[in-house]
């Protein structure tokens, strides 16, 4: 997994690398997603919805899902306001999950959580998926910001589970 190794090396926190870490965190793709979020807005005929709250900053997000008869995510959308990281993460997530099965969504989520927490052992993801998720891996160098990145995913999960209770970005 060469991509992963590159990112691991960059994640090391040397002072002269702080600039690089910041620029990786706020790289073009992320800023683009945060300024022009995909699948943003309400979703007609949503079958599953959930609210998520980041208690640290008060940011809120709502995720809407439309599951088809086979349990696939036929459509997905999100609403809410937040920092560049949380918005980009939500936008990337919706892009990625449209058309996936719930089992795949879960697998991607676990892979994502591993990546942004800087943990080892991200396995079983297709290279294409990994490549997309790695865009967010720069967050792992900023432990205070991990919750911003995970909020959308936790909210998506609680929408799938239909618990109705607001998700927290734990």
């Amino acid at each position: 997994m060469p991509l992963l190794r590159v990112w691991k090396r960059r994640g090391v926190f040397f002072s002269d690398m702080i600039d690089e870490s910041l620029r990786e965190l706020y790289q073009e793709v992320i800023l683009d997603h945060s300024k022009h979020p995909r699948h943003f807005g309400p979703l007609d005929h949503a079958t599953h919805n959930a609210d998520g709250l980041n208690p640290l900053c008060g940011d809120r997000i709502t995720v809407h899902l439309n599951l088809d008869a086979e349990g696939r995510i036929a459509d997905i959308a999100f609403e809410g306001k937040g920092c560049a990281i949380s918005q980009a993460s939500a936008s990337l997530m919706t892009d990625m999950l449209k058309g996936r099965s719930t089992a795949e969504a879960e697998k991607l989520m676990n892979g994502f959580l591993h990546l942004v927490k800087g943990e080892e052992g991200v396995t079983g993801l297709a290279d294409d998926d990994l490549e997309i998720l790695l865009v967010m891996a720069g967050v792992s160098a900023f432990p205070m910001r991990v919750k911003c990145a995970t909020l959308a995913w936790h909210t998506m999960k609680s929408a799938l589970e239909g618990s109705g209770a607001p998700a927290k970005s734990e």
Partner: protein
Amino acid sequence: MSFVPPLSDFSILSKPVNGRRLAYLDSAASAQKPKFVLDAMTEFATSEFANVHRGVHRLAAAATQRYEEARVAVQQFLNAKHSDEIIFTKGGTEALNLVSYAFLSPRISAGDEIVLTKMEHHSNIVPWHFMRERKRAVLKWVELREDGSINPSAVAAQITPKTKLLAITHMSNVLGTVNPLKEIIQIAHAKGVPVVVDGCQGAVHEKVDVQDLDADFYAFTGHKLYGPTGIGALYGKRAHLKTMRPFNGGGEMIAEVTEDKVTYAEPPHRFEAGTPPIIEAVGLAAAIKYLKGFDRAAIKAHELELYQYARKEIGRFKWVRVIGEAEDKGAILSFETTGMHAHDVATILDGEGVAVRAGHHCAQVLMERFGVASTTRASFGLYNTREDVDALIAGLEKARSILL
């Protein structure tokens, strides 16, 4: 005449952060501790420490004496009439909860009202929400002016015969507004309403005289006052404290315990159940002593000069909206940045060694009032310099270049 920041007292300030010179602009969240305070705590812990008010051995006596001396130091700091009007708590939050539980709760019933302002910190809101939830009390909010100040007549307008308490901050942790407490307390007292003041910020930057203010309660916290965490204090008028039920139950707060009854100690010990934060109390007394070594008006002037410098510099940025421009305000600069979220700004500032707070600052009612979800906040302490402001301004320009 001009105040020289005692930088060498704060060794943390000379340690690089992210490879950059640290510009610590988050003193409103918690202030750094001078060596004087840390040494006093170590000295006490390594030569005189034991539990207090228990045991007859020499160290117990020495520690008890130091703990009670700390109470006197707080008494003098607030100019309270008696030292038994000072209760040690674990912080400002606990002090305010104590007032809610031990003072207000037995005196309030369904439909009674609590007046509070929209600039309160959550720790001066949630204890009153408890009264709403548990006693069906009603919260009445004092509106703020656009500049973040309070019109005393707006307070008067919210007080009715059902009002059982006014809760108000001395100084806002977001806006920096310093409230005209004396006038407001007079208004409340004229209508028979007791007043609890959240002094967590005010005690740091303003001279406090609880007798002159005629406050019923005044709460503050040690860690924002260049003292340790884990300690704060509540001032309460003796006449109130005597009539109040205990807060926590345990050791130290009793007169006598038998199988079927318990009687309580007199204030302040009635409210200090269990082993208190003894080393921290000594540290708090040291912080007060440390501050006494300066002309506090000169510290305030210094902080305000930095604030004004920062305000002027930031004013150049069309994309910055400052929140809190009251005439009487302390050195806190809160702002919104168009197109950039406060957390992203703070992360980039951190990369430049500039420590600020971003978020709702535990003041969501205030955020709602100003229609913002979060702000970036730079707050100043006695150790800050113009260099810190320059780093902040340069950092903001950098944030803009990265994020937009």
